[in-house]
Structures are given as C-alpha cells and as structure tokens.
C-alpha cells in the first residue's frame, strides 16, 4: 500500500467535517493503514486538549438532572434492546462458502457493514461494461454517489473523466493506470480533468469502493452513450 489520504483530508476527518461518503473512504483506508490511524488518533488527542482549553460556557443548573432523567428512562428499556442486538449480531456474518471469487471472500470493513449487510456477493451487481460490474450503495447523500466497482481479471475501463472529485479505495485485488499500481488499502483521489484508464491485474478480480462527487463522464463519443448507466 503506497497511496494515502493527504494531511488535509485526515485533518478534516478528525475534525468531523468531511462529507460522510468521503469519510467512509478515509475510514476504510485507516483499517488497512496503521500510519494514518496513528495520525488521526494524534489529531483527535490534539482536539481533546483544545476542547479542554475552550473557555467553558455555563450550562443550565437543571442540565445534569435532565441527563440523569434520560438515563433512568432509558435504563428500563436497555436490557430488551441489548438482547435484540446480540441476536442480530449472531445472524449477520453467515459467510458464503460456495463462491470462490476474491469479491466473495473479501471481508466487509466495519465502516461499510450497514451498506453491505450480507457480504459483497449478495449485492445487486449491474454489468455496465463487459469487464465492469457496479453495485450502487444507498448512502443517503445527494452530493455523492457511493458505489462498489468490480473489474474482471485483466479487464479495463474506458478512458474517462469526472465532473467532480472521485475517491477510490481498493478493497481487494489490484489495478493500475497511467500513474501507478494500486493494491488493497490504497486511497486515490482524482480531480476533474484527469482522464484515466484503469486496468485490473491479470490474475484476480479487483474490488473497489468508489465515491464520486458527480457522475462519471467517458471521454470518447461511444462511451458518452453509456454514461446513463454509470450514474
């Protein structure tokens, strides 16, 4: 793994100001990268110290009592809720042993588990190009699309460009483009006006998390016709 989010992105992540889909990519990357995790932990420690130094603003006298009242109200319901959570966790992971592709085997990172509850192979994959399948995830965000891209071994995606930022996080396998080779955990940020043509490695399928600020735009005439599928 050689490609990391920049310092600015880690700073915004720690401050909690990154749009959620972008924070999702950073979070998944941190699961692969002890170095970026350490940097974020340090920034959070700094934030904690800045918080402690803020000139405090008095809270109402009743505020503590309100908190205790809410704690007491919740307490009586907690045991039932706890039991439910345990049961749900038991059912969740059910690994599918039948499929052999790297996508099926790839572990779903914690940050993605709500969007990919049954594992990657259970998603609704749409074949948009001979070598590219896409599953759109419902992140509940209008400004960004959150998708998973699955490129067949040796497959390529036509030269394309983006109208907005594109964040790519390699979950398994590897791919390359004009600028480098990317393996699991690598975090890539493409700005508009950087057309690129990704190729998956020959020997295995490549699974990526792709977060785009605006729909992809293919640069050739023919591919422009296909654009509606790449929403």
């Amino acid at each position, binding site marked *: 793994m050689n490609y990391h989010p920049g310092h600015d992105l880690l*700073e915004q992540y720690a401050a909690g100001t990154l749009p*959620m889909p972008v924070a999702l990519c950073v979070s998944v990357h941190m699961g692969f990268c002890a170095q970026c*995790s350490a940097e974020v932990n340090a920034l959070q*420690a700094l*934030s904690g110290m800045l*918080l*402690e130094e803020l000139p405090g603003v008095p809270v109402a006298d009743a505020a503590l009592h309100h908190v205790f009242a809410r704690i007491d109200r919740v307490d009586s319901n907690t045991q039932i809720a706890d039991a439910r959570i345990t049961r749900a966790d038991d059912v969740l992971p059910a690994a599918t042993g039948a499929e052999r592709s790297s996508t099926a085997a790839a572990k779903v990172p914690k940050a*993605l588990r*709500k969007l990919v509850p049954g594992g990657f192979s259970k998603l609704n994959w749409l074949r948009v190009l001979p070598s590219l399948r896409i599953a759109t995830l419902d992140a509940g965000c209008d400004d960004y699309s959150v998708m998973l891209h699955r490129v067949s071994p040796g497959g390529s995606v036509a030269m394309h460009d983006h109208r907005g930022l594109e964040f790519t996080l390699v979950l398994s396998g590897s791919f390359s483009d004009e600028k480098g080779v990317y393996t699991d955990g690598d975090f890539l940020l493409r700005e508009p006006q950087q057309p690129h043509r990704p190729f998956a490695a020959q020997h295995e399928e490549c699974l990526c998390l792709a977060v785009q600020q605006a729909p992809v735009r293919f640069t050739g005439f023919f591919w422009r016709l296909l654009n509606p599928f790449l929403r």
Partner: protein
Amino acid sequence: MALPRAFTAASTRATVTSIYDAKNSDTDPWGAVLHCVAKQDRAAFGQLFAHFAPQIKAFGLSTVLPDRSGQFADELVQETMITVWNKASSYDAMKAGASTWIFTIARNKRIDLLRKLKRHSGMLDIDDIWPIEDEAAGPFQNLQQRLTERRVRESLKTLPPAQREVLLMAFMEGKSHSEIATDLALPLGTVKSRIRLAMQRLQLILEK
C-alpha cells in the same frame, strides 16, 4: 502491516526511557473518574459533567449555524454526556486520554445532530465511520498514542497564538481552510502554512 515509520524513528529512543513514566505518571485524573462512572457512580459523573459540559457547550456554540439560540449546543451537551455514561465501561485509558475520548463522542454527536438538522438519514452509521476508539491498535500503538498525547500537551503550551487560533478554528469550529482564510482576512496559503507549522511544531505530521 508497516509500523508508523516517522513515529518509530522519532521516538524509539524516547520509548525506552519513558515506557515506565507513560504507564505510571500519566496525569489524567479524568481517566480515573471515567473508571468510576463505568461503575455507575453518579457522584463521579457529576464531577465529569461539571468539568466537561461547559466545554462541550462551547464546542457546540462554535459550530457554524444559522440559529444561535444555544439550543443546538444544549442538545449536544445532553447527547454527549448520555453517551459518556452509557459507554464509560468501554473506555480504555491505555488507548487514549479521557479528553480525547470525550472529544470523539462530542464530535460524532455533532455530526449526528447536524445531519438531523439537514434531514439527512441514510444507512451509514456515524460510529462505524468515526469509531470512538481505535479497536485495531495493539499495545505498541497504544503506547505510541500515550506518548504522543503527552508530547502534544507539552508543546501546545508554547504554540504561538496565531497558530493556536487556526487550530481552534479547524478542530473546534469545524471550519475549512478557505473559511478560516475568509474569517481572518488572510490569503489561503497563509492559513495552510500556519496549520502546517503548528502540526510540525506539535510533531503531528508523519512522513509518508
């Protein structure tokens, strides 16, 4: 998994001599208080509340919002402190200082409340994306983190006011670099270099 190189190189020597100190003389009284809160000690929670609630309120008030009535900040205090009570038993003093832990909870609650204001829902879970604690960190990373916390606490005392100001705006007010530039009537480049300088001074920038 490669270890964080810059941290390792910079502090291997320090690690040997201060491993004892880091374990024994961490001056974090709030960690001990949180430990009592974990055992449902309401008096301890009252102490913690008296100390942190005004700060969390200030953190909430600094959030850029059209409505400045303080309702948002009060709700943030409530939500944060309830979560502190509920999660106190999972607080691990080996992983992070009490203020770090409380900040991450307050930050997540702020994200959550802002999202509700904008009526965004969606399936994504805030605590999944911004975990309250680093579950993956092992003993080595935990030690590094505690040493980092101590170093940052020390060097924060000598940080030039102009650098502290931009850090406060970025991390407490949640402003982007360009928003900070507008507020301070400074060129964007100046803001960026101030933040960079502050990070270097606190030794928070890692070589990649």
